[in-house]
């Protein structure tokens, strides 16, 4: 059978992509997906001292056929994101795709969360995404546009106990995505989101052998967690030129969780 030409629609050959938060499972999977589709890659971490994790991710990206450049977070988040956006444009020749996988899960009872907790959760899950969008767009706007994908969570639209601030931050990222999409719609930047379902990864609270995990699995429509790699299809679609008429939208990769009562 002759091979079809799917790759023509979804290929990222010649595109330059920056993945922020690449030391985490979702960033890792995103970077590998984009590399498989042919993009040039810069991997940027969200935390200082993550050299080792980022190098591991770089190996996987390398195995996918692309030698990535690496940026480990070192200065203040703002300065770092600003420099990283410029670095990408300079080193790769452009910044066509920015994927924000910035995420720091935060769980705890509302009564025990003080103002410092609030600031920290919002900073790690919302403010960094905001800053990354700003810095990425600053570079993209001088070059005629680009694509931004913010990875948020199904918790952007569903509440759970003991994660009020995390849920609030994730919801904020979703609506930030919509608002920025409208603001930049005529300037050539598309902004979309992916809402990850309950993930099966190293920082997940859902893959423990405890009551919470067991109950959650029963509730999930197909009784399993999402593997980070399963976000790849939606990510590639949104990043590709094939999605040129899609902006301000979010795709949930959750096995149907958000569809149920």
């Amino acid at each position, binding site marked *: 059978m002759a091979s079809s030409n799917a790759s023509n629609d979804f290929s990222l050959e010649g595109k330059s992509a920056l993945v922020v938060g690449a030391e985490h499972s979702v960033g890792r999977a995103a970077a590998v997906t984009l590399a498989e589709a042919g993009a040039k890659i810069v991997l940027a971490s969200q935390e200082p001292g993550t050299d080792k994790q980022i190098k591991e991710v770089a190996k996987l990206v390398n195995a996918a056929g692309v030698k990535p450049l690496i940026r480990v977070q070192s200065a203040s988040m703002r300065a770092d994101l600003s420099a990283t956006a410029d670095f990408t444009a300079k080193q790769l020749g452009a910044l066509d795709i920015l994927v924000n996988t910035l995420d720091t899960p935060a769980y705890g009872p509302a009564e025990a969360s003080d103002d410092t907790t609030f600031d920290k959760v919002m900073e790690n899950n919302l403010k960094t995404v905001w800053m990354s969008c700003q810095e990425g767009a600053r570079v993209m706007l001088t070059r005629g546009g680009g694509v931004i994908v913010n990875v948020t969570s199904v918790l952007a639209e569903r509440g759970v106990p003991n994660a009020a601030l995390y849920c609030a931050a994730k919801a904020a990222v979703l609506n930030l995505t919509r608002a920025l999409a409208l603001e930049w*719609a005529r300037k050539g930047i598309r902004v979309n989101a992916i809402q990850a379902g309950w993930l099966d990864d190293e920082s997940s609270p859902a893959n423990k052998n405890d009551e919470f995990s067991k109950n959650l699995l029963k509730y999930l429509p197909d009784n399993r967690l999402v593997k980070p790699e399963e976000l790849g299809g939606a990510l590639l679609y949104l990043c590709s030129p*094939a999605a040129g008429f899609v902006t301000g939208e979010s795709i949930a990769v959750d096995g149907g969780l958000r569809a149920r009562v």
Partner: protein
Amino acid sequence: MILDSLKLDGKVAIITGAGRGLGRAMAVKFAETGADIVAAARTQSQLDETAEAVKKTGRKCLIVPTDVTVSVQVNALAEAALKEFGKIDILINNAGGGDGTLGKQLPEITDDEWRRGIDTNLSSQFYGCRAVIPHMVKQKRGKIINIASGYGLRGGKHNFMYACSKGGTIQLTRSMALTYAHFNIQTNCIVPGIFPHNQEMMVFFKGGKFIPIGRGGDDSELGPLAVFLASDASNHVNGELIAIDGGGLAGGITPTGVSPETSN
């Protein structure tokens, strides 16, 4: 490899409303991506044109003239697909549209008009799902894509049948998704914004200048989204609606893309 998971080589796709517009565009794109097509619509001559375009890609196209409001005809469509190809991997419930009740004063809408509209847009999709599901359950694999509208999510003045039927589409999608998740069958919705299929529509929609992105969609842009939802790259996307509307719904414009004018 992610790009391989976005191919449809060897798949069989039933597409209703395949005689023109978005249906034909999806049929051709699916064929280019490797699928054989079962094209359904009422008008034989339009189906012939679709088949010609599909066959140019080297894929097969079975034509089944079908009135999707008649459930025995929809059942026969599924049977014809099985007889020809031995399987059904993908169903796109695309047939439907607006009708004469759009803009009509509520007291003027007749029972017949209401029923015909709901039958065309919603019952047809239910019939389609019902006709293919035993086969998909048996093969423990399947993809169903229902075409909805921004009116399925938001209301509109003097827009009753259309908004209700498309809202029904979305709920049909969700319940299908949850009921058959265990059988590895994913059901999702595409929510198209404004796709001016011809010059007349282009004028009516003012060239799309009130759509956030500044233009209407081109029929060819729908295909890749449908390919994504029909492919293995979306195996954990289920019960989801994806708007392809140039940002229309993101802005709270009611419905997709239709005024207020955002800018020039």
